[in-house]
């Protein structure tokens, strides 16, 4: 089933790049203090959502990139054949899940090894610029693979605050996304709005969303996904009331 030529369907095929915030300080923090959304329930929502995207069209592609504190990496790619092999441990988990969790764990260990300070001070932001760049690189690779390609989108799931020192890098990534017409959707699950992601969504024509009910994240994501998947165009989605209020960019 995987051998169907993807190109002839490329009109309604999506390539969804998901940037997962895996900042341990954010997840550790929310987990102990508020307990609104734990990392595991967050992953539950996200994985269910990714599954629904893949279910919608066999040719849809999903790529997950972990946005860590010290590094970023690809942790899941639906197009590679190994991801499709059904891993039935106990039948409780989708195939996607166990593979991704495995990779995620490896990533977290690697990320930890890279950290230098024992307990960082100031704003503990994730490497958003890095993961945005990884996503754009992947999309460029897909663009160059042939004349027809799926519609790419980037979905940023961000919890930790913006890192001011990444400002230039993030803006550059946003502009290159704008240039290659890749919309950046953002879903902020942290306490604060993210000015970076507001800019990103506004400039690239994506959706900026800050859900109020975090335990309903899956529902927000699926409703939002009418933008992600062309088939669902009939559902209307809340538009972004948060136009960026800082500098405007050409």
């Amino acid at each position, binding site marked *: 089933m995987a051998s169907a030529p993807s190109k002839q369907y490329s009109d309604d095929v999506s390539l969804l790049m998901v940037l997962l915030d*895996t900042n*341990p*300080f*954010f*997840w*550790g*923090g*929310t*987990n*102990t203090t508020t307990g609104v959304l*734990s*990392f*595991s329930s967050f*992953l*539950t*929502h996200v*994985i*269910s959502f990714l599954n629904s995207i893949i279910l919608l069209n066999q040719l849809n592609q999903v790529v997950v990139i972990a946005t860590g504190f010290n590094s970023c990496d690809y942790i899941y790619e639906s197009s590679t054949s190994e991801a499709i092999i059904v891993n039935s441990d*106990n039948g*409780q988990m989708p195939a996607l*899940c*166990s593979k991704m*969790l*495995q990779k995620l*764990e490896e990533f*977290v*260990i690697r*990320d*930890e090894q890279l*950290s230098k*300070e*024992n*307990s*960082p*001070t100031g*704003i*503990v932001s994730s490497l958003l610029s890095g993961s945005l760049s990884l996503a754009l690189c992947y999309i460029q690779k897909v663009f160059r693979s042939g004349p027809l390609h799926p519609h790419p989108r980037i979905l940023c799931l961000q919890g*930790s*605050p913006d890192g*001011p*020192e990444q*400002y230039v890098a993030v803006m550059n990534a946003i502009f290159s996304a704008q240039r290659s017409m890749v919309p950046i959707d953002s879903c902020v699950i942290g*306490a*604060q*709005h993210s*000015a970076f992601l507001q800019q990103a969504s506004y400039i690239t*024509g994506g959706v900026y969303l800050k*859900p*109020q*009910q975090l*335990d*309903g994240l*899956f*529902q927000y994501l699926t409703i939002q996904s009418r933008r992600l998947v062309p088939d669902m165009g009939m559902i*209307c*989605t*809340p*538009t972004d009331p948060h136009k960026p*209020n*800082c500098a405007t960019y050409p």
Partner: protein
Amino acid sequence: MSSGQVVMRARYKKTAKAPGIQGVLIMTEDKFVFTRDDNMSSVEVDVGFRSIKGHKFTKEAPQNKALLNLTQEVKGGGYIFEFDKFSERDICRDFVGKVLGKLQATQSSAQDANVASEKPTITVHDEQLSAEEMELRMKLLRDNSELQKLHKQFVIGGVLTEAEFWATRKKLLAVNASRTSKQRVGFKSAMIADVRPLTDGRTNKVTFSLTPEIIHQIFTEKPAVHQAFLNFVPSKMTEKDFWTKYCRAEYLHRTKNAVAAAAEAAEDEELAVFLKQDDILAREARRKIRRVDPTLDMEADEGDDYIHLPDHGILRDGSKEITDTEYEQYRRTLAQDLNRHAAVVLEGRTLDVELGDTRTVAEALAKSKKAELATEKSDDKANQERLERVSRMAEIEDLQAPHNLPFAPLFIKDPREYFDSQQANALKALGDAGVGTKTINCSLSTGQAYGSLRELISEMKVTGLSDPVVKPEVALKVLNGLTQHLSSTKYNLGKNPQESILDRLPNRTKEELLHHWISIQELLKHFWSSYPITTAYLYTKVSRLKDAMAEIYPNLQGIKESAQSDFRHQVSLLVQPMLQALDAAFTHYDADSQKRSTKSGERSNGFI
């Protein structure tokens, strides 16, 4: 003229073609009267200037008659007067222009007075407008309905004077003025140098027809012919002979008879001038070559020359052009002709002489050429420049010191601090300061944080996804929340989310908002430009403007209140900056007048 009356002999005509009636024209400040010579007692024309809309006149030229046409408001109606001399006509024309300008000014101020009768008219007409300027302003107002609305609201409403209103739009007036300047007609782009010979088919006679226009173009395109004309005519031959010879040479060119051309040139040295390559052109070309960008390598393109290959080349008049070395100097290729023609057309017409007399055209052309050469840099200087350019082009950029413009670097003590504070501001502006203050718990050590994260992941590996993913109650809440949000923006269904909020508002509200915004801008522009207040005039102007702005203020509130509930929030967002701008102006006004009053208390003889 200063006496306020002009008396002139003129012929009154009902139409431009009619012979007209001889008589006397008397113009006073408010009317003009014409009495005919043959019947002094009866007055032919007696019209007040009030009914005259404008005046037209003929250009001063020997073939033109000195006419003055006073047009009436009624379409087509008018009074045409013919004068003996242009100077006489000009006196009348100037007088009419002045009278009409004055009339228009008083008319508009009368209008001001009518509308704002309860207010004292403060209109000061300190500028005397010519009829043309007046017409230009009228036209601008006619063409731009927005401008017209503003004009009606503020100038006729008495808030701004005519002069003040236009003072901020000098650019608009200037642009239009420059546009009216006459454009000079250039050369035709068709190659008229290809004077086609006409043969009648029976005899061997060939006829060329030359017009002044063609001659002018021949002179500019072929400097050698121009030179020869100056040399030979009329000392050596008549103009007719000259052109006959020229046409003969042309004919030889056309028939591609290079051998015959060479033979004829040997016999007749004057004819040879036309047949040989143009020396002046060649010299010019050499000069141009010296100015070519030195990094341009023409030789590199030599391989692209296909002209000599079979089935390639340029066809002209049905036969292929080939350059034959032996008679080359008697041939002109199409490429040469085309290039020369293109150069002349691009250069444009530099001469402003009435075409007609060939001799004057030729001389004027020579004069303009000389002036051109004088302004161009001498060859020495050009050479120097060329060398400079070579060195500039050949330099390797990486090895050079950056030749940037001097600038003062932006000094930010600590960029981190700057951006942090920016983010804090942004958050504050978003209005969720309550949530924003809750910072991340970063008391965790790195090890702890990573440890707990890893723990969560491995835990999840065992338990799998939680079931159900979303609890039904939560799902309902989310759905309700989203639906509510959607219903408030239901008009937006299927539309581009990037579109302006304005488009979603009802048309009337949108137009009102836009209009208010424009009027506020206009008023604020005048308001702020009046500061600092140095004269009593500015003081009254500012208070006038303040009153006008205060009138708009409640209107904005009204719009906000009258908006439907769906749009109220958006409208208030739009109105907010307008109110802020007005508030800023009011605050400044109050602060300034307070300062002023304390000052005038100290110095009782202040101007206010």
